C-alpha cells in the first residue's frame, strides 16, 4: 500500500517527537502525555522495516534516556523490544484496519512502558499503581490521527 518513504519526513518526525517528549504539557495532564518517540519507532518500523530497525530504535531510546535522565539503556532496551515486535508482525499489520492497528499500538506502547518501569523498579525507583499505562492509551488514540498524516506526507514527498 505504501512502498515509498521519505527520509526528510522520517528525520524531521523523529526530531519533532524528541522535542515533544520534553516539551511543555499541561501540569495536571502530565501522566497522560503520549509516548511520542515510541509512536515514531512503531510507525517507522512498520512502514520502513528495512531502513528503521532494532538498532535505530535502540539509539533513539538512548537519546530519550539522556533527555529523561534515566539510566542509559533503559529506554533503549524498551524501544528495541517494540521495534522487534513490530518487525515480527508488520506484514500482518498492513492488512489490519486502523482501529485494530491502534489496539496493537496500545499493546506495544504498554509493553514498552512496562519494561521501562520494571527496570526502574529493579534499580530502586518507587512508582505505585498502574498510572504509567496511561501514555499507552493516549498513544493508541493518537495513532488514529498520526498514521494517516504521516502516510500522506510520505506519499507526497517520497
Amino acid at each position, binding site marked *: 500500500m505504501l*512502498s515509498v518513504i521519505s527520509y526528510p519526513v522520517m528525520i524531521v518526525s523523529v526530531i519533532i517527537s524528541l522535542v515533544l517528549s*520534553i516539551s511543555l504539557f499541561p501540569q495536571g495532564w*502530565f501522566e497522560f502525555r503520549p509516548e511520542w518517540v515510541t509512536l515514531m519507532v512503531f510507525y517507522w518500523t512498520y512502514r520502513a522495516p528495512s531502513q528503521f530497525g532494532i538498532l535505530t530504535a535502540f539509539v533513539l531510546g*538512548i*537519546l530519550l534516556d539522556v533527555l529523561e535522565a534515566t539510566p542509559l*539503556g533503559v529506554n*533503549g532496551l524498551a524501544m528495541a*523490544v517494540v521495534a522487534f515486535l513490530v518487525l515480527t508482525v508488520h506484514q500482518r499489520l498492513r492488512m489490519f484496519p486502523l482501529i485494530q492497528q491502534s489496539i496493537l499500538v496500545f499493546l506495544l506502547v504498554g509493553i514498552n512502558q512496562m519494561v521501562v518501569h520494571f527496570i526502574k523498579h529493579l534499580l530502586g*525507583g518507587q*512508582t505505585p499503581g498502574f498510572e504509567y499505562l496511561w501514555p499507552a492509551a493516549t498513544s493508541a488514540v493518537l495513532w488514529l490521527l498520526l498514521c494517516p498524516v504521516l502516510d500522506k506526507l510520505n506519499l507526497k514527498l517520497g
Partner: protein
Amino acid sequence: MLSGRGGSTIKTIFVQGGVPGFRLLFVLVLSAVLIVADARFDRLEPARSAIASVLAPVLWLGNAPDRFSNWFAGVITPREDLLSENEALKARLMILERRALKYGALAAENNRLRDLMNASATLDDRVVVAEVVGVSPDPFSHEVVINKGARDGVEAGQAILDANGLMGQVLYTAAFTSRVLLISDSSHAVPVEVLRNGLRAILLGNGDISQLELVHVPDTADIREGDVLVSSGLGGRFPKGYPVAEVSSIAKEPGAPFVTIHATPMARLSRSKLVLVVFSEAGTVVPEELYDQQPPGSSNGEAAAGPGDNGGEG
C-alpha cells in the same frame, strides 16, 4: 541487507535486513551492560554529557513554546502596565538596597565576632542566576533542566535555590545545561535544623511536589507547626542556613517511636522560573559578569576573596 541487495533487480515489497532475533539479543545484552555500568558504577557520565550537549538544540526547541508565549505576552502588554510595573520594581529595588546595606554592616559585624570566637569566617556564597528551561518528562521523578552547564562552571552536587528557599541539587551537567533533582523527589534528602532551637533532622522528599517529610524525630522533641526548617550544612552538600521548608502538620501516634511530621517546601518548586546556582566552594571559576557577590564591605570582600583564590590554585 543481503536480501535488499538481491532485490535490486526485482523490487520486493518486504525488504528486511539482518536477523531481527540476533540483533535483539545483541541490543538486550548491550542495554543490560549499559544500565549496570550507568546505574551501579556511574561510568557513563562523560558519554551522557556528550550526548546531552548534542541534544542541546532539542532542549532549546522543547522550551521554545514557553519562550515564544513570554515574548508574545511582552509584546502585547500595554505601555501603562509596563510603566507601573517598572515603578513597582524600582520601589522594591530601593527597599532591597537599603536592606542590603544594613545586611552588609551586619555581615561585617558577624565576621568580626566570628574572628573573636576563633571560628573561620564564613564566606558569602557566590551565586549564578539560571533559568529553568525544561522539566522531566517522567511524572514520577521531580527534576528540572536549567540553562547553565559545565561551561559556566556548574558541577554535580551544587545546591539550587530560588527566591524563597532551597530547591534542590545539580544531578548531571552537560556543556550548556544541567539537570536538577528537586527536594521533593522521592530519592532526595536534606539535612535540616529547626530555626527556632537548632533541632537537627532529615527532610525527605516523598514524590509530592507540595509536601516533604521530616523523619526520625522522637516523640518528645520540641517542634511545632509553623517552625521554619533551614539547611544545617551537615554532610557538606548544602550550604548552611538557607530556608528549606515550614512544618505544616505534626501527627503523634501513641506507641510509635517517631512523630509523623509533614512540611511545605519554601521554594516554589513547580513554579519558579529563575533559580540561583550556589558556588559554596571557594575557587570555582565563574564568569566575571555572571555572579553576584555581595561584599559586606570592600576591604572585607578583598580579604575574603584572597584565601579562596589561593585555595583554588593549590
